[in-house]
């Protein structure tokens, strides 16, 4: 089953990326190198900045929520989970255009929209991870006079580091693969997110082969992040 629905299509698209009109070639990757190298860097940078912004916000809010549980805020924080990507892109664009038109179409606007959308997922994962930290540790720190910020920085974050790392990998991979938000927010020129390039190659040019090569580059980028995730999942061998 896994072979049919996952491995087979993956293998077909990887194979397609090494052919052109049925002839084996590396030409599609040359095209990616020549035309889309900048976009690969841009995609990595936007995803990294988006992940960083998401965590900068989520850690502060989730730390506060762990220390003083407040259900309405927690609920609000998770709302983005249920808002479709296209709606987020459209809403942020409509929101930003009147007073910051330059930001709406720039990488900054994109990072903002991606962070907004992923805040819900980050909150879900982080609140869970922070709640897994035993209350006795917090009590001990409080006895020495630690406030919420200090508790978050010196107790919650270090003790949840493995879960935070896994969450970061998931969110980073999701941003790498984002399509609807960049489609709604980007302009027709300048650097683009990689999935927009994939769409452009086959949508405008019917060029499935270069689109497949771009897809493989996307797999590889996500794979780097996934390796970290898998390492975390692997059972730790103790001496």
């Amino acid at each position: 089953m896994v072979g049919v629905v996952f491995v087979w299509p993956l293998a077909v698209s990887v194979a397609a990326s090494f052919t052109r009109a049925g002839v084996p070639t590396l030409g599609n990757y040359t095209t990616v190198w020549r035309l889309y190298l900048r976009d690969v860097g841009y995609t990595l940078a936007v995803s990294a900045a988006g992940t960083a912004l998401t965590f900068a916000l989520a850690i502060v809010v989730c730390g506060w929520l762990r220390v003083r549980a407040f259900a309405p805020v927690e609920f609000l924080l998770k709302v983005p989970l249920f808002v479709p990507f296209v709606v987020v892109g459209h809403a942020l664009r409509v929101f930003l255009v009147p007073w910051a038109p330059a930001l709406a179409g720039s990488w900054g606007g994109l990072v903002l929209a991606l962070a907004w959308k992923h805040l819900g997922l980050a909150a879900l994962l982080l609140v869970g991870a922070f709640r897994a930290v035993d209350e006795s540790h917090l009590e001990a720190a409080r006895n020495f006079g630690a406030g919420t910020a200090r508790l978050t920085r010196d107790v919650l974050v270090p003790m949840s580091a493995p879960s935070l790392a896994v969450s970061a990998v998931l969110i980073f991979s999701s941003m790498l693969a984002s399509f609807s938000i960049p489609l709604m927010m980007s302009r027709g020129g300048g650097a683009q997110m990689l999935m927009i390039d994939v769409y452009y190659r086959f949508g405008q040019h019917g060029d499935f082969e270069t689109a497949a090569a771009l897809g493989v580059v996307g797999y590889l980028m996500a794979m780097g992040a996934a390796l970290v995730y898998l390492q975390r999942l692997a059972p730790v061998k103790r001496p």
Partner: protein
Amino acid sequence: MLMRALVLLLVLVVPASAATRLNVAIGADVNVVEVHKTLLGPGFKAQTPDVELNVVGTGTGEPASRAIYTKIRAQADAGRAPWDIDVALVSMAVASQMVKEGLLLRYVPRLKNAALVKGAEVKEAFGVNVDGYVVPMFQNQIAIAYNPARVAAPPKSFDELTKWVAANPGKFGYNGIKGGVSGVGFTMGWVYWKTGLYKQLTQGPFDRGREGAIREAITALRDFNRNVLITNGNAGTLDALNRGEIAMGVVWIDQLVAWKNEGRMDPSITPVLPAPGLPIYPLYLVVPREAASKDAAVRYIDYIATPEVQAKAIVERFGWYPGVDPDKVLPLISAKSRELLFKGVSAEDLARYSRQMPIKEYHDLIALAYEEIVR
């Protein structure tokens, strides 16, 4: 794309009750789908009661036409007949590819209105001989729209346009080549103007020796773009014009007229067609080679090609230019529609400055140069 093809498949396999079922796949926006569902379909059914229409839209832009192509290509590759699309509305690029690959029926000679199907674009598209395979449902012209309150003298030529843009940085917008065909068309118009190679680029044969001139033109476009706002699509340009973010922009005339009709656009925004012109881009009605209901398909297209239907449904209702012989259609439209249609861009302008898209090899070469140089 796959999802679109699946949806298309699901919709098309729903069993029909009427004697003849006509599956019509529309590779265009919802407004075009609506014309078929609410105007053309019922009108045709009144004449031909034994035919039941099943109209399906596949999305917008080139990908919509590609979804239709992918489905027909897959059925052809599977070697099974008949195919389940009887009439399709596809872009010039996809229609020419389908003719080249032998996927279409040469049906135009069977039309009663065959004599009305005329013009360069029904003979050749992207360098492929499409004669007999296509009927444009309507013509759509790319033009430059401007706000008269902010542009005293609209540019009559590309030369004047570049001067205006240099004097008014950031006040001219278009959507690049990744945001829709109006930007692609503007780029082609720019290359025609800079290289002076319109005839060669549209009629071929392909000569790689022209690459230098093309790249030079695109380099000039890169410099021009420094003072230009690149919008995020055809609608994005109209939106920026409406908000006053830009004073001039590249638009589809039909979209401008439609937005004005819906009250979504400042009615004073006017189109102009500067010399040496911008491309016109028809959407073609085609019949797949192995369509199940070929006869009904041909009759339906014949109905759409009737001058009265063109005048009422295509021109008056939607502000599109007629797909068939304008000499036969335009005398039938009202004075008000005529004024709206030709405000800013006269019939003479169209005759002089409507340009074809280049042949596929040059089209791809120009798009590639744009991606490499302008970025």
